[in-house]
């Protein structure tokens, strides 16, 4: 560092240097994430980052193009709405005239034909606007010829107002887009300016570079120039539209980024430290929400126009020249391309200069300012940190830090609202029944959790060192957060359910059951979602979340929601159980990763076989079996149901067992260590090696199999006396008798194939992994319930009992063989 430059860099050179640093930082961040991914997966990972960038760019492009369509559409809709007002007056006149006619019938002629045609035309548009189904909406371009409506509007009236509002929405979206939500929330505490100003650089250059930084970081700015381009193109033609992209769009985009940054600077310098986060959070949220609003309303333009026009109609008489000025409209109503370009680029230059100047001035007034020491309220909080001190800490955060509201409520609810929009076809039928409303409530709650979970550690910031000094600190912290998130989502869903109960008082019972189910489901969903938590690097950059894990958090959600939507209780229950099991599997993996949160270079995948391995193998068996059965039936024809079933399940079971064994062998797990269980505390003399112990273990298996088989038979016999299910069972029996081959093949499969594959997967892999995660009776019951779930709902009870008994048998005898034997005998007795 001895060679010092002869003179300090000039203004533009400083801007260039700083922007170069921003670009390098973004590039370095991407490279580091790629390297870490490769390191973790030992070089076998595939990089989907490019695809994610592509999707982000498509969405933001859609938002910008949508803003143009929205503005255009709002003007047209404004025209039609004004026309309707005219029409209403016309109708009023007509009515009066008709009245007059009736009064003075013989003396008055009929109204002229011309008026009648025009009135019909208006009525048609008015009807289209009034209809609420999106399919019936007039398509873009609107039915009225757009040019006269769009072009010849003077600077007042409904259409000018609506068009200006569309323009405003786009400006807010761009201005408050910032550098992306994650980055901004962190950056509020780490302004680099103080450091930068210790260098001999012009403050204006620092701020200009800072203001241009969002352009490099947020893809919403890449496509922003398209918006003016499209609007200009619709007036002046395509060549001028293209020109406008460069001459109007680019300067305005830069100006919007600058203005947003200037607002951020103002907040940083003028607001108290505790309010900064909240203010910047609300600003970012406004930007994000207006982007969503643009996307949503650009496909529902007429509804948006109708919604806006009703309350804002009185304001339409004010002058609304903004859209006209933006497009270069002259006072006489004609349009001039040059005037438009000059107005917009002049405005952009003014905003950029003004924003830079404002920032510089604010800096001169005192960068460090506003560090006001805030005393907490005199009413001192008698902190009784009892059962869960961390939960209390989170509640205090929620109460005192105003940015909590943005992070915990506004952002997740916006995301949930977005999901609702995606599901709008479902929403149209919400009022059709209580179950639709409940299903939508469940989806909103889930989406809320999926948004909030990955951000769990953001509010910790640099204070995260403190939990690291506590025993189990980080884990307890995340568990506490998961509980808080689960509560919050239960409140959200509870509100929806209360509404449902209000609308459908007769269905209070089932709605309460859904609520009860959601209480359990929310805990598992929150547990899953916090495993996506990342820490933010000291530079303020958030860590990346793998998309595989993001998908895994969603497991069970749809099953639960569809179960509620279609009133299939067993399906809803399956969803809850599946979600709970996934939560356990994800936490097992997460616990292995957790110590490496600050040391990603040392991170390795947890030792196999994990719960997740077992779940994936089981899913492969079930899904693979179903697909193979379908394929075999398609090839062999429906006449061969029996052999197809046998063949498909046999092949799937063999393939999954062999592939799983191969997968485990390649990761250093020998088969013997799956089939024998020697490393456990729940020892029994049976588990020792030796022929006598082996014989006794197998005998125990036979005993359990015979006993449970008899219980199963008794259960079936009891079912035959239940009026609700007896006809169903009789029908199944009759079907079986008609097809003896099916019965034989089922028996072969259930006795000779299934026990091996299922015991290997459900007991050898799943139960043992679950025992390490939950331990004791919870693991036994959990694995039994999970096993039962893969069988028809009628047989859940005896099959669940078999699952629990076999888990115990495996653990006590230390031999999977005894569980296999018990399973074979049970199946033989019940099906034989």
């Amino acid at each position, binding site marked *: 560092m001895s060679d010092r430059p002869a003179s300090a860099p000039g203004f533009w050179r400083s801007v260039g240097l700083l922007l170069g640093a921003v670009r390098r930082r973004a590039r370095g961040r991407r490279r580091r994430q790629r390297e870490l991914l490769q390191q973790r997966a030992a070089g076998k990972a595939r990089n989907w980052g490019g695809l994610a960038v592509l999707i982000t760019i498509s969405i933001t492009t859609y938002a910008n193009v949508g803003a143009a369509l929205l503005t255009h559409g709002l003007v047209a809709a404004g025209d039609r709405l004004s026309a309707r007002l005219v029409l209403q007056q016309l109708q009023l006149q007509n009515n009066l005239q008709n009245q007059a006619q009736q009064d003075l019938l013989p003396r008055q002629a009929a109204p002229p034909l011309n008026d009648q045609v025009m009135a019909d035309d208006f009525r048609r548009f008015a009807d289209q606007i009034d209809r609420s189904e999106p399919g019936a909406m007039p398509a873009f371009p609107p039915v009225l010829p757009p040019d006269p409506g769009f072009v010849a509007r003077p600077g007042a009236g409904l259409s000018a107002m609506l068009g200006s509002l569309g323009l405003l929405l786009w400006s807010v979206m761009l201005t408050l887009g910032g550098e992306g939500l994650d980055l901004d929330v962190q950056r509020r505490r780490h302004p680099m300016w103080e450091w930068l100003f210790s260098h001999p650089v012009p403050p204006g250059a620092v701020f200009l570079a800072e203001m241009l930084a969002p352009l490099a970081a947020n893809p919403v700015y890449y496509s922003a120039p398209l918006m003016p381009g499209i609007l200009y193109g619709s007036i002046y033609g395509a060549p001028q539209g293209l020109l406008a992209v460069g001459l109007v769009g680019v300067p305005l985009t830069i100006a919007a980024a600058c203005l947003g940054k200037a607002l951020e600077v103002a907040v940083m310098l003028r607001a108290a430290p505790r309010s900064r986060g909240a203010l910047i959070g609300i600003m970012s949220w406004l930007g994000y929400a207006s982007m969503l609003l643009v996307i949503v309303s650009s496909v529902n333009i007429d509804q948006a126009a109708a919604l806006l026009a009703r309350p804002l109609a009185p304001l339409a008489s004010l002058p609304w020249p903004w859209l006209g000025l933006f497009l270069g409209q002259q006072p006489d109503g004609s349009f001039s391309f040059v005037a438009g370009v000059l107005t917009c680029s002049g405005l952009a230059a003014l905003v950029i200069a003004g924003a830079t100047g404002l920032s510089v001035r604010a800096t001169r007034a005192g960068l460090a300012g506003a560090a006001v*020491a805030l005393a907490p309220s005199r009413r001192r909080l008698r902190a009784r940190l009892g059962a869960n*001190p961390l939960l209390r800490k989170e509640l*205090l955060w929620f109460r005192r830090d105003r940015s909590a509201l943005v992070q915990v409520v506004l952002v997740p609810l916006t995301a949930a609202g977005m999901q609702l929009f995606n599901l709008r076809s479902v929403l149209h039928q919400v009022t059709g029944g209580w179950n639709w409303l409940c299903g939508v409530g469940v989806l909103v709650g889930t989406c809320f959790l999926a948004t909030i979970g990955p951000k769990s550690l953001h509010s910790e910031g640099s*204070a995260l060192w*403190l939990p*690291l000094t506590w025993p189990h600190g980080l884990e307890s912290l995340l568990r506490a957060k998961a509980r808080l998130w689960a509560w919050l989502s239960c409140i959200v869903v509870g509100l929806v359910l209360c509404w449902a109960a209000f609308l459908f008082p007769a269905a209070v019972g089932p709605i309460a059951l859904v609520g009860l189910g959601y209480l359990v489901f929310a805990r598992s969903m929150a547990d899953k979602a916090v495993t996506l938590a990342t820490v933010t690097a000291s530079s303020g950059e958030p860590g990346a979340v793998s998309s595989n894990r993001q998908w895994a958090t969603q497991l069970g959600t749809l099953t639960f929601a569809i179960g509620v939507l279609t009133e299939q209780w067993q399906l809803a229950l399956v969803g809850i159980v599946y979600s709970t099991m996934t939560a356990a599997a994800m936490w097992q993996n997460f616990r292995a990763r957790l110590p490496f949160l*600050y040391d990603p270079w040392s991170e390795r995948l947890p030792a196999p076989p994990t719960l997740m391995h077992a779940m994936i193998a089981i899913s492969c068996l079930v899904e693979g079996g179903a697909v193979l059965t379908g394929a075999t039936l398609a090839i062999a024809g429906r006449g061969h149901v029996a052999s197809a079933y046998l063949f498909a399940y046999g092949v799937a079971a063999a393939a999954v067992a062999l592939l799983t064994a191969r997968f485990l062998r390649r990761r250093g797990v020998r088969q013997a260590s799956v089939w024998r269980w020697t490393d456990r505390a729940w020892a029994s003399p049976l588990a020792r090696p030796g022929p006598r112990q082996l014989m006794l273990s197998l005998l125990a298996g036979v005993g359990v199999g015979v006993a449970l088989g008899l219980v199963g038979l008794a259960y079936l016999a009891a079912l035959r006396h239940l009026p609700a299910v007896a006809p169903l069972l009789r029908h199944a029996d009759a079907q079986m008798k008609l097809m003896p081959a099916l019965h034989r093949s089922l028996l072969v499969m259930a006795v000779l194939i299934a026990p091996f594959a299922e015991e290997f997967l459900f007991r050898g892999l799943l139960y043992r992994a679950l025992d390490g995660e939950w331990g004791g009776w919870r693991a036994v019951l959990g694995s039994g319930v999970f096993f039962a779930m893969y069988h028809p709902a009628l047989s859940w009870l005896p099959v669940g009992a078999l699952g629990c008994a076999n888990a115990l048998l495996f653990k006590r005898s230390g031999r999977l063989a005894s569980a296999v034997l018990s399973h074979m005998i049970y199946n033989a007795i019940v099906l034989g």
Partner: protein
Amino acid sequence: MTILDQQLSERDGGADLVQISNVTKSFGDKTALRGVCLRVPAGQVCGLLGPNGAGKTTLFRLLMGILKASEGTLRVGGLDAFEDRVAAKRLIGYLPDEPVFYSYLSGRETLELSAAMHGLDVGQTMQRLAPLLDRMRLAAELDLYAEDYSRGMKKKLGLLLALLHRPRLLILDEPTNGLDVEATHLFYDLIGELAAAGVTVLFSTHLMDHVARLCSHAVIINAGEVVAEGSIEVLLASHGRASLEEVFLRLTAPAGT
């Protein structure tokens, strides 16, 4: 000084409390520590010296179980610093270079939270800390938000947090960095009293005269390697220098100068 009395009773004789053998730590292709071996007996005050970026903080984070050694083992009281990190954290008190606190908790609430998370009785712990709070002149400020504390007050609060569970090993990362003269003296008095009560103290600093005054031992790290270790007298004698500063400059000078 109830806190110190209790620590005195936990004193155990002889064995090395901290055993670091052959530790290497790399981040990607960058190596921060290389083959570090170090033993600190119980009750010793050991100063860790080294230029910026030598790997002092990395070594502390390895001892805290926040990082995992690429090679070699670290043991605290016989426990592996990474594998047994949960148990080891009960033995260790840690003060980072620049402690940051939750912006929405007061100093008292932070202390109470930390006590609860160590499984201690909150009321008793606060009572036990009361004399120390008075000595640090922190009692009056305890109900302000910890985030608004001055740098020195943050360090004091950090030291209290490190002490409240009566650790056997105290790891202090540049404890007096940014403190005024009075507070610096207070810190060193406390370190001396803790050591007398049998607490092992491992601290890093850039102030040689303080090391010479406080420590029986010093370790000098340069570029991730231990370049000198031993009691102060031995260090001075073996390098033939009059002051620790000279030894330090000689050992950490870049090659070729």
